[in-house]
């Protein structure tokens, strides 16, 4: 099975180890960091779900990787960032993931209050360690 990025309404860009993903239809903003960014890259490159699962299994990245990845894919689907492509084919080479001990399990950081996001001053009203859209920790 394949997931495809919903390119009609999704804009995404990778910077450092993170990918930010924007749903331009509803103004939702997502940050996928670490493994989450790698999975997004793999989907964008056309790898199948089985290939992604296999790569994480081989790398022994985290426990219960099958369930964690299923949860992550479910988030992507429910946010309409990707759609299922049952007929897809893949000519890509083998997917390889390298274990990173600093990264946690893949998660989608969701920022959904568009009006608040835009109103936030990106110089002063943000967490200085993370930057916009992360607000200062109280």
């Amino acid at each position: 099975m394949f997931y495809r990025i919903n390119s009609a309404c999704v804009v995404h860009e990778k910077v450092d180890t993170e990918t930010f993903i924007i749903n331009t239809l509803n103004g939702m903003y997502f940050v996928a960091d670490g493994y989450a960014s790698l999975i997004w890259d793999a989907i964008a490159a056309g790898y199948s779900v089985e290939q992604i699962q296999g790569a994480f299994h081989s790398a022994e990245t985290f426990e219960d990787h099958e369930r964690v990845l299923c949860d992550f894919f479910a988030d992507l689907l429910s946010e309409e960032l990707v759609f299922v492509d049952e007929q897809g084919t893949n000519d890509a080479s083998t997917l390889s993931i390298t274990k990173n001990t600093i990264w946690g399990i893949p998660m989608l950081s969701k920022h959904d209050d568009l009006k608040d996001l835009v109103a936030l001053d990106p110089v002063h009203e943000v967490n200085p360690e993370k930057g916009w859209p992360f607000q200062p920790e109280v």
Partner: protein
Amino acid sequence: MQDLEIFDYIESNYVIHDAQRLLLLSLIAVASHSIEYFKKWLTMIDFDAIDSGSFRLMPLVFSAFQTMQAENPYHARMKGIYRYVSFKHALLFAKGRMIFQQLTQEGIEFILFKGAALTLKYYHNKAVRMMDDMDFLIHDKDVLRAEEILFIHGLAYRYTKERRLAFHEHSLDYIDANENGYDMHRYALPESMYPGVDEGIWARSIAVDWNGLSVQVMSAEDLMLTCCVNGVRHLAELRYDWVYDVITIIRREPSIAWQVIYEEANARKLIQPLFNALTIIHDISPHTVPTQQLYTFLANHSAYATDLLCTLVSEGRSHGLNQALIQPMQASRKQTFLMRTIRYLGAVNRSLFPGQRNLHDQQISDEHKPHHIRCFYDEQQQINLLYLRHQYLSGLSNLFEICSSADVSRLTRRYPTMGEGYVKIKPGCLMIKSDSTLNHYQAKLTILNNPRHVVCAPGQRIPLQLKLLNQGSWLWISSRHAEHPYGVSYHVFYQDGTLHTWDCPRYYFLQARKNYVTFLGRQPILCDLQIEAPFEVGHYVIQLDVVHEGINWYSKQGNAFPAITLHVEERE
């Protein structure tokens, strides 16, 4: 260029601060140097107090230096700004594409310009070139049809009905529920609004691909002109990020039809702002706009070149002129320097610009002009040379911080009291004065052009010509370090005396210039101030005032200035 040998060099009139300069250089220099500029910039800035021009360059800067996370203490916040712009622009462009697609389907012609056009044509990455809205030019006949389409896409007019009536002639601002802005222009530039003025822009526009949608954008030349004119419109609060846009255009295009730019600027009477902008770019990147280009500009605009010479001479800024040509006049003591200059420049004018109006026809007068002293610096950034009128020597202690008054006294004795020229300074002897509170705040303001009672429409702008006289015993001084400029402004009161608006736009009459100390003593200066009428109908009092920005209002120091009564009435 032989004909313009009177110009030794041409310098920018305006100040781009050291940190701003470093930021621009970090973006335009070759890789090895750009990193050094960026690192130096990091040591100079207070990120919490970053100016608006630098802020607008942050996505570009982050994009260029994102691998330098370890050396950049502001990496996370810069990345955040990049994310912020990426997010806002993703929504702006997504909605914009739908709108422009429908305009195309309905046969409504439009031309994108400013940020949207620059992004599609040059930057390509939608996150790097910050913009507040998408600007597009449209034919006047299509405005209502286009507006209907904007409404269909959930847009609404951004401001009040009154503001729309006041400013609809140039452009109309629309926003959607997510604050995405779209600025529909009847005319490309507010300085030139008359039927047919944009015909050349329409004819020169070119098609670019926007993910399968073909849209028209301004030509490189018209983008440059609009960038320059918009960029220098508010020189007192110069936001300099446009400089990078123009440099990018010039570098990306195989060639620029400069003659087209000159002719368009000439037709719109925008020669002066264009020249100001080009000198600023030349100052930052002499390879992009070389001196030769400025000479060519002046050769193409002889009347402006003459005006420029007059201004330089009358304001004491003639150090950039060929001294061998200037000095014979200074040697003679039979006439005043100014009269000799007029005579000399008249001869120069006739030889340089045959058939053009003569400098004798122009008024060269230092009346109503600020005085200037040009400072030159050594490698340690200490003043080692001045160019000035010798009469200013006796006042150096008022104009600079003095380390050795004996050294300054020697200077005063060594030079004549008339004429002008270079004066060597022992490094460390003089320093630029920092801003300080004056002991006396006394000034007189006279309205030259207007009646005291004005009837106008909501939001209407009323131009005032003012004569301002410093009656205090201290000089008004402005320099590159001036953070507290002097300006004229006004306050708006209701008829019953209660305050409507205290802080209104300023006209800073003592423009800080790069490498200059500019000052005014007890001589009058002319100022142009635009009053903006309130948007609500009613009776108001406009109280003029003088401000030492951030320090004092002259009215609070016992000065009384003229007031204007304003009757704002509804207009159809």
